[in-house]
């Protein structure tokens, strides 16, 4: 498939905006995958016991070893005096870094309580950086629930990194968004074969290895939730290449071709380099299409991946879309995707979970994509579900993962079909 095959629609799509109880994680959750990607980074949440409990619950497993994330839990004493809270923070960071000489980047992560008491983590990070550089760079960002939704935590973390990126106007492709190492390597090989380079990834496997940024930087967004990072890169002279996201065959091809066009690569060359991947993925999707085609899909807002996922399941697996919820609609980030959604599908932004569940019960879709808190209760009502958190923990981008991605949605249906209990 090539870009020419993609229809282009620009008319505004009606969006249902709701406000009420939200059944989503906050931005702290991003730490779970960010710390695994950046193996020289430590994430220190400055927050409450709730924050600590959230991260370990969202991680689903309590990992055996001493993890590279933790919480500096605020106590009554810290709330009484901010000056003391800063001293306390310095003490905690110093003892942490002494214990963990392998840490090269320390992220101070703001939380709801730290923001409400106006604990200035940006200033704290500058102060601590002055003390610990060059061994350790200290950055700060907010993962608080009053400001961020689930995957927005990654956006804020990456934006904080952009501020520290060195300046260089040399030509480069910068891929933005956390990708599994295996996916990153596949894309790197494809870019090499296409003759696109040099290529940098943000985040890289080591947080200390920051890419440069400048007027020669062309940005390919690998995840749809990094809008603020994109805007920070633009402010530093970089230019974003608008494209759908690399989910499925069509998305991956369109994504690669945005870079290919910028690098002046011919269509023939793009077709030739991507041929093997496209054919493999198309063949691998076939059995999943048999299970998914015609099935009705409802996406609750959660990971911010809902719109590209809906596009993939609709266009490549022939699923019917009932409602596509998204925590927030960043048009700049998803315009290319919205154009690919069929007419008449309900796109909703924000959430009133009770009203949305009423719609789920009324529509009785074949599959509902939702958070872990809702999955079992919906299953108990006879509705098949897919937990959305898997979409951020599993490698799903690129040709080689297209069938894995489809499999995530086919499996609940197949399971339901098998069970006779």
């Amino acid at each position, binding site marked *: 498939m090539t870009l020419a095959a993609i229809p282009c629609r620009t008319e505004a799509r009606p969006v249902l905006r709701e406000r009420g109880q939200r059944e989503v994680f906050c931005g702290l959750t991003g730490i779970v995958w960010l710390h695994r990607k950046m193996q020289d980074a430590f994430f220190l949440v400055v927050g409450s016991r709730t924050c600590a409990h959230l991260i370990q619950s969202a991680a689903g497993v309590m990992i055996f070893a001493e993890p590279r994330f933790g919480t*500096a839990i605020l106590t009554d004493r810290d709330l009484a005096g901010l000056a003391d809270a800063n001293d*306390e923070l310095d003490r905690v960071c110093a003892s*942490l870094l002494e214990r963990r000489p392998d840490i090269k980047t320390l992220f101070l992560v703001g939380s709801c309580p730290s923001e409400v008491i106006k604990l200035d983590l940006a200033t704290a990070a500058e102060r601590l950086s002055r003390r610990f550089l060059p061994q350790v760079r200290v950055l700060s960002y907010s993962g608080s629930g*009053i400001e961020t939704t689930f995957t927005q935590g990654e956006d804020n973390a990456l934006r904080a990194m952009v501020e520290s990126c060195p300046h260089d106007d040399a030509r480069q492709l910068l891929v933005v968004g956390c990708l599994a190492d295996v996916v990153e390597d596949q894309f790197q090989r494809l870019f090499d074969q296409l003759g696109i380079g040099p290529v940098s990834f943000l985040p890289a496997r080591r947080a200390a290895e920051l890419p440069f940024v400048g007027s020669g930087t062309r940005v390919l967004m690998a995840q749809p939730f990094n809008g603020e990072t994109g805007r920070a890169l633009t402010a530093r002279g970089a230019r974003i290449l608008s494209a759908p996201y690399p989910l499925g065959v069509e998305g991956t091809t369109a994504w690669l071709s945005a870079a290919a066009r910028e690098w002046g690569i011919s269509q023939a060359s793009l077709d030739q380099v991507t041929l093997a991947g496209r054919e493999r993925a198309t063949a691998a999707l076939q059995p999943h299409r048999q299970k998914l085609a015609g099935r009705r899909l409802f996406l609750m807002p959660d990971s911010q991946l809902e719109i590209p996922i809906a596009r993939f399941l609709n266009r490549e697996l022939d699923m019917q879309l009932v409602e596509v919820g998204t925590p927030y609609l960043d048009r700049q980030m998803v315009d290319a995707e919205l154009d690919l959604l069929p007419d008449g599908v309900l796109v909703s932004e924000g959430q009133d979970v009770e009203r949305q569940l009423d719609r789920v019960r009324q529509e009785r879709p074949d599959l509902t994509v939702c958070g872990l808190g809702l999955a079992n*209760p919906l299953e108990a009502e006879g509705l098949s579900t897919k937990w959305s958190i898997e979409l951020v923990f599993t490698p799903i981008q690129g040709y080689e993962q297209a069938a894995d991605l489809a499999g995530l949605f086919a499996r609940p249906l197949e399971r339901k079909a098998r069970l006779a209990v």
Partner: protein
Amino acid sequence: MQLTLWTYEGPPHIGAMRIASSMQGVHYVLHAPQGDTYADLLFTMIERQDRRPPVSYTTFQARDLGGDTAGLVKDATRAAFERFRPDALLVGESCTAELIQDQAGTLAASLALPVPVIPLELPAYSKKENWGAAETLYQLLRGVLGARPVRPERAAGTKPRANILGPTRLGFRCRDDVREVSGLLEELGIEVNAIIPLGATVEDLRRVPEADFNVDLYPEVSRSACAWLKRSLGMPHTSVIPMGAGATRDFVVEAAALAGVDPTPLLASRGSRLPWYSRSVDSTYLTGKRVFIFGDATHAIAAARVAATEMGFEVCGLGSYSREFARELREAAAGYGIEALITDDYLEVERAITAAAPELVLGTQMERHIAKRLGIACAVISSPIHVQDVPARYSPVYGFEGANVLFDSWIHPLMMGLEEHLLAMFRDDFEFHDGAAASHLPAGSSVPQATDSPASADAGGLAWSIDGEQELRKIPFFVRNKARRNTELFARERGIQVITTDTLYEAKAHFGR
């Protein structure tokens, strides 16, 4: 500020959620920002609950902070009442809402809803989950019964009645313990008046004063309520936790005394297989096994008694994250000649386990991971739990059947450990090779090397001579670590720097006296 990597307990509002989600007809309005809904998955995923916890979150955002967050509380409370029609409402705040001081409980009470509205004040920056559960249960009972409850007259000749207090969602094996303990009471001729909060309705709360006494089954959650009912209504409560064969008998005697019934027939007819299994000769190898115990205070203290007196283990460590029960824990530990470890710092527990070098760890999910990393056998005895601690089968840890479950679940990892030890010991024999793993492990697992810990670097300048080390290896594997420890202790006490074969046997003679 306290650096925390893993936490044993959540914040206190999670305790309140455990009470609300254990009950029927109780709804909890929680003034909280986006993200706090993560707590729902504890119930729907760890316990595989088939309904959402009965909690409505106000979900305030940064842009609301300058505006009307109080209005959000009122709207959310009204909407929750309209939609769920609960018999009682709990209204409280999570950590962030506590800071903005909207007084959610007072706001909700001002709505004059036609059901009891119980405001909860759970200080998130000083208290934790179990305290929150205990406080919520107490406030809920007080809210429903009134500050000065009265006890109805009991007609003469009626059956004695008891309430069971404390079992909750996300508690350790509460679902099955309740069935076991209810069975014991019924066999004694005691009617179970109400089980609170697991499965209870608001009507059940109102009936609490109709019982003769309370069973304080999970003191971390139920002690405050039991103490209040004793103070205000003169209702006595039990003190024995029926975990293990002996404690179950003690519990039966205590409950019978409170009810004025005769325990003898039950004690004569019922029992557990644990006492005989423990006396069976194949259990000899359990003698003196070093066991490290950590959990909530209730389960840890009860497990220590079972370990020491019913399994014949040596309790080499006893600790808890329940600071509220530090005194009881210290007393229990003193009985085993050790000092109690009272901490909620996971790394401190890990250090203590490493130093104690136990052969079995009885702990929470946290200790399971510590033990796995150290290659030590482990069984889970307390919350925090994970999905595997909510088994499909009937599996109590209280009562006579509970004692059977304890025997199986504590001995099983040791037997498996024994097989691995044997494999490690025979690994040089020609029939075996290093790649062969224990048969219960998946293909490809390697033989654990943790059986024979090398002389530690921090042994205080101690070193083993080559002949001493070789002689040590000839000692049977199951006492080798003990021999190593004792010899090193002996050498250190005498200022010996290099341990030879002679030192080894001198130490053996010294400790063997």
